[in-house]
């Protein structure tokens, strides 16, 4: 049987899952946490506590700042020390953070902190969505889109796709939770399935994680959920990309410029499913997540998978794990393909933090670019079917019309083009700002068209009134 995967493009980097056998350890509490107000896609949250307030674990400290936004909860108990901008991963001092000095570990009442598995799923869709929203659950696969918004699509979904692909090299946090929190993830999936009104659920896992496929299949069988299956996928990056996973599982494509919901699909990460389980069944807000400490220059005994409290500074995790290795040339938050390189460890963990990756110079240093030999390997690798060599040329020439005609706005910034270029041309570095520029132009045009239509309507109405 042909292996299941997405149809267009993709690359096969070494998966380097060095930390896959490191069981999840609980990271101890630091002295201080810094909780960001912008841990999700959309409007930043608005703080509802003041300096000097005492907070408990799981207490709401910020509320949504808009429709697409999320609640933020305290991950520790203690005293609010400050609410001030602090450096984010990029080193920019822009986002307000709530600084909390840790005192003890006192949880809010009503949160079930036991390990008891709760299998009975609430019947009411609205109740499920309300709990997911109240507990600040966001997508943990990378984009941190608020889960309650995604789970209430405009048109009914045919598929709930659970993303267990973990196609980024090195990362193992999803793998570990699939092995250690298997049933919780499966129940979380069933809860989301219910919230979506009973669609089919497919759990996609790449073939390089056979133990996870086995464990998840066994849990689905044991819990006896209907319309839920585990699907083994070929190992290919970016399989965990939303659009690619939809294509791999259903054969459908999300139309350009549209949402997965338009293709009848909702994709959620396995870590999100665990967060949904905890939110709905245990009333526990999203205050913890799993993070991998790994890298090619870190000995395997120093690699870990940690259950951490959101807001713990990266420097605390790095020190607890034994410090930054001498050979580290680059520290990355996230995977090597789409993660962010960080200049220092001042930043703090957020809901979507999945790894702290140390790469040595040889693995990560950019080589000098040479002439394009028109081999077409970038176009072959692009999972969106774009032609990066052409987009780069158009971007260098400043041809925004040409860029739009050649679909630069469809780029998902997965990095396949830059990875595969034998001439080391920094294709994505050049295409990324061009895409932002074109999308800005498209938005401005749409806004202008809307304004013009409204003005025309108003004028027509005024004329109508005159005629009367």
């Amino acid at each position, binding site marked *: 049987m042909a292996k299941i995967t997405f149809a*267009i493009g993709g*690359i096969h*980097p070494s998966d380097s899952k060095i930390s896959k056998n490191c069981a999840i350890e609980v990271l101890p509490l630091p002295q201080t946490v810094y909780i960001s107000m912008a841990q999700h896609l959309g409007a930043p949250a608005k703080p509802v506590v003041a300096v000097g307030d005492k907070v408990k674990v799981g207490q709401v400290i910020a509320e949504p700042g808009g429709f697409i936004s999320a609640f933020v909860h305290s991950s520790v108990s203690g005293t609010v020390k400050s609410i001030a901008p602090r450096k984010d991963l990029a080193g920019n001092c822009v986002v307000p953070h709530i600084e909390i000095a840790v005192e003890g570990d006192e949880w809010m009442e009503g949160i079930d902190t036991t390990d008891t598995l709760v299998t009975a799923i609430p019947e009411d869709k609205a109740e499920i969505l309300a709990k997911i929203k109240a507990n600040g659950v966001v997508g943990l696969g990378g984009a941190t889109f608020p889960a309650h918004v995604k789970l209430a699509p405009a048109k009914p979904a045919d598929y709930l796709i659970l993303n267990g692909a973990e196609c980024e*090299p090195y990362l193992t946090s999803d793998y570990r939770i699939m092995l250690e929190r298997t049933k919780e993830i499966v129940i979380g999936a069933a809860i989301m399935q219910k919230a979506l009104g009973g669609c089919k659920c497919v759990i996609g896992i790449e073939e390089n994680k056979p133990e996870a496929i086995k464990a998840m299949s066994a849990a689905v069988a044991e819990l006896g959920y209907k319309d839920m299956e585990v699907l083994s996928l070929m190992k290919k990056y970016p399989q965990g990309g939303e*659009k690619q996973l939809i*294509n791999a599982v259903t054969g459908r*494509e*999300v*139309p*350009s410029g*549209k949402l997965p919901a338009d293709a009848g699909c909702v994709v959620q990460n396995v870590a999100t499913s665990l967060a949904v389980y905890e939110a709905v069944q245990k009333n526990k807000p999203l205050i913890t997540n799993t993070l991998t400490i790994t890298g090619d220059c870190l000995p395997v005994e120093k690699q870990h998978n940690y259950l951490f409290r959101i807001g713990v500074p990266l420097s605390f995790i790095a020190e607890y794990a034994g410090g*930054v290795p*001498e050979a*580290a*040339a*680059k*520290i*990355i938050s996230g995977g*090597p*393909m*789409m*993660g*962010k*390189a*960080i*200049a220092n460890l001042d930043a703090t963990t957020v809901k979507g933090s999945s790894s702290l990756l140390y*790469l040595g110079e040889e*693995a*990560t*240093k*950019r*080589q000098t670019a*040479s*002439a*394009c*030999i*028109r*081999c*077409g390997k970038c*176009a072959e690798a692009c*999972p*969106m*079917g*774009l*032609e990066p*060599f052409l987009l780069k040329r158009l971007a260098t020439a400043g041809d925004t019309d040409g860029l739009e005609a050649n*679909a630069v706005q*469809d780029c998902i*910034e997965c*990095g396949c083009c*830059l*990875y*595969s*270029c*034998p*001439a*080391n041309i920094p294709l*994505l*570095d050049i295409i*990324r700002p061009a895409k932002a520029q074109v999308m800005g132009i498209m938005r401005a045009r749409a806004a202008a068209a809307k304004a013009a239509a409204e003005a025309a309507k108003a004028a027509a109405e005024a004329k109508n009134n005159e005629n009367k």
Partner: protein
Amino acid sequence: MGKLLVSPSPHIHTKVSTATLMRDVVIALLPATIVSIVFYGLGELLVVGVSVASCVLLEYLITKYLLKASNTVCDWSAAVTGLLLALNLPSTTPWWVVFIGAVVAIGVAKLTFGGLGQNVFNPAIAGRVFLLVSFPTYMTHWEAPKGLFGADAVTGATPLGAIKEGLLQGATVPDIMSANGYSYGQMLFANLGGSAGEISAIALLAGFVYLLVRRVIKPHITLSIWGTVALVSLIFWLASPARFTDPAFNLLTGGMILGSCFMATDYVTSPMSIKGGIVFGIGIGFITMMIRYFGSYPEGMSFAILIMNAVVPLLNMWFHQKKYGRK
């Protein structure tokens, strides 16, 4: 903690580089080179040596002193051009003619257009065609293989040349074939007059398979040329076996294997998309057969590739791959 690197994603890169790709092409050409030296002897060794050395040296000197640009010898592309040019010449070519071919290939066809990646025409073929029209005496006098230590060289025409000549004198194709004692086994393994590199189809195909296995090239252009040549010659041959050569003969002679596997698949001068590549291959196959059947030159592969090279920018504009989420 020392200074850290910071860059946009991605943070890892493939190990495949321009140099490794070009080196793979050189490796793929080695079987054919070795076989040609074994069969043609020291003359062929001289042709290969002069061609590769002058291409590499010219690339180095021109980029350094004339263009004052960065040195591009390390990317192996000049070596590939040199080797391909050598395999496209008769083993009897004088060294100075080989050198002129290298000047045209590297100096004119490649670097005048802006160097690697910018050239419109395949440099090795441009060099060969320049020599073919400028020095027809050297370029059409082929030496029959005599072996590395053989003594008496026998010169003669290539199979396609012999057929063209015979047809002009009123003979039929089967007559000419049997008069010259051509057999397909000979064409496949070795021992037939022609460009040195064409001596053994098997050696060339082994290199082609190596390139496919190493994923240096994809087979669509080559297969599309073969398919077109087979189809066009089949139609003509069935219509008149006395006047037209058969498909197997056309696939095995006249630089067909060398051209379709190594020259038409050159990254720079072939289309970027699969669809474009297939059209490119059909064009090469069709033009080659038209030249062979109706043109004044007996072969035609080189001209066909050069003509289709010129169409590549158009093919790149017309044919694109399927985009995700778009019709």
